[in-house]
Structures are given as C-alpha cells and as structure tokens.
C-alpha cells in the first residue's frame, strides 16, 4: 500500500503512448483487414493442401487429415493461455490499461479453440482408438484447461466493476498458469498408471514433409486468425468501456 505519496503522472514513452487505448485503436485499426485477408488466403491454401495435395498416412490413413485442424487448435488452446498470462502480468505489474482489455478479449477465444481441439481430438480418436473419448494425458489436460477457461469467463461476468475484475482475474490467471504444468504432469502420471503407455505421437519429428506443409500452413492460418480476432475483440472492448463511461456521464447529466 502506497500511502505516502501517490503519484500517477504519466511518463510519455512510446510504451505509454501505445498503452493509451485511443492510440492503440487508431494505430491497429488499419491492420484488421489485411490480417483478415491474409488469414483467409492461408486458410484456403491450407485446406487445399489438406484435402487435395497431401497423402494419406501409411498407418492412420486419411484420418491424418484431421490433424491439420486438431494440432493448430490444440496449439492455440495453450498459446492463448500464455498470451492471457502475459497480459495478466501486464495488469498486475505495470497496470497497463490494454492488458486488461487483452485478457478479457482472449478468454472466450481460448475457450473456443480449446473446445475445438477437444472436438477434433475425439473425432480423430473414434477411428484411431475406437472411442470418442479416451482418458489419455493430453485429452484430459485439455479438458481441464477448458474448465479453467470457462471459470475465467464466469469470473469476468460475475463482476460489475471491470477494473476490479481485471485485477482479480489476473491473479487467478497467473495461479492457473502456475498450475497448468502441475495438472499436465499429474494427469500424465495418472493416465500412464491406468492404461498401457502412450498411443501415438502424431506431432513427432519423424513426419514426412508432405504432411508437414499443410500442417504449417494451417498452423499459421489459425494463429493469424487468433491475432485478428483478438485485435477486433480488443477494439470492441475498448469501445465498450468508452460507451459505459459515456452512458454513465449521460445518466449523471440527467440526474443533475
């Protein structure tokens, strides 16, 4: 607690100028359409590769094509959490106003990608393992990650005051980030205990190049898609906050 002199005079560096939500809005707004176009192109190229220009795997057959959507969404489910944790640090340590916004925008995206990773995983699992759901280490820890995402979204929604919410959610996100590796470790330990060891490693380094090309294209397409959506959602959130302020001011004006 800093009682002996609270000084909030802003230091004007490029950092704090970028931190200003209005500046951020006007600087990144021109990026949205090019990013969206690039995402679309990469996605189409990736789909073309995935369906027309890649062979079936000699072991898994055509089901390997599910990998081109499964691996990118599974990657994003973790990458979005990492992005959220960095934003949470921004909120806690630097009290960066954009960090709050970024955290809030990322949570539903992360939950959606995690849900997609689980869905494609089970679609892959049915032909490969013969069951939609297998309690293997990766599926299980992804499911728990989804629960954490949903908890964070519920926490955001439960607060009335978004500034307060941001700090509390930031603490929770970071505690979650510390816990995710522990959860992963414990779940791996548990699943090897209960069933014969690991099934297969599709993303291992031994994959032939013909499978890697579509995978990389899709990987970048999905990552760019996340970046685009994240920017757009951040813009909306900044505007929403401005809207709330304006509405409140209007209401106060009426009251006076």
């Amino acid at each position: 607690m800093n009682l002996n002199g609270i000084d909030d005079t802003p230091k004007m560096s490029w950092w704090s100028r970028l931190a200003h939500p209005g500046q951020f809005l006007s600087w990144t707004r021109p990026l949205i359409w090019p990013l969206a176009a690039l995402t679309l192109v990469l996605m189409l190229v990736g789909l073309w590769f995935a369906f027309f220009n890649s062979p079936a795997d000699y072991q898994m057959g055509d089901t390997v094509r599910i990998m081109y959507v499964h691996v990118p969404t599974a990657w994003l489910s973790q990458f979005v959490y990492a992005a959220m944790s960095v934003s949470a640090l921004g909120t806690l340590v630097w009290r960066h106003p954009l960090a709050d916004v970024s955290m809030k925008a990322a949570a539903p995206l992360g939950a959606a990608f995690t849900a997609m990773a689980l869905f494609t995983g089970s679609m892959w699992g049915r032909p490969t393992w013969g069951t939609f759901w297998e309690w293997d280490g990766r599926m299980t820890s992804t499911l728990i990650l989804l629960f954490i995402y949903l908890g964070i979204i519920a926490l955001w929604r439960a607060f009335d005051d978004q500034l307060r919410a941001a700090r509390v959610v930031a603490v929770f996100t970071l505690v979650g980030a510390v816990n995710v590796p522990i959860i992963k470790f414990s779940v791996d330990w548990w699943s090897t205990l209960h069933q014969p060891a690991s099934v297969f490693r599709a993303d291992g380094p031994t994959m032939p190049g013909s499978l890697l090309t579509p995978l990389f294209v899709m990987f970048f397409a999905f990552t760019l898609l996340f970046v685009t959506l994240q920017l757009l959602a951040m813009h909306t959130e900044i505007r929403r906050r401005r809207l709330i302020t304006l509405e409140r001011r209007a209401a106060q004006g009426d009251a006076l």
Partner: protein
Amino acid sequence: MIGLGEHAEFIIAAYAGVFIGLGLLIGRIVYDSRRVRARLEALGDRRG
C-alpha cells in the same frame, strides 16, 4: 475432391465442426463490434 477413405464421416465432421465453430466465433465478435460501434455513434462519439 479425393476420396477420404473409410473414415470420411469423422474427417468431414471434424472440419465441419471446426469451421462452424469458427463461424460462430467470428460472427459473435463481429456482431458485438458492430453493436457497440452503433451504440457509440448513437451517443455522438466521433472517434469510432
């Protein structure tokens, strides 16, 4: 399109699921963005 082998339905379901999901996600974010912008404009904010 090439044949998808014996498990075609799962491959199609996976892709359809992901792209329907993405569609819903994009739709929600774009709709939200439009709505907030429209309300801002209604309040007379010109900064976009």
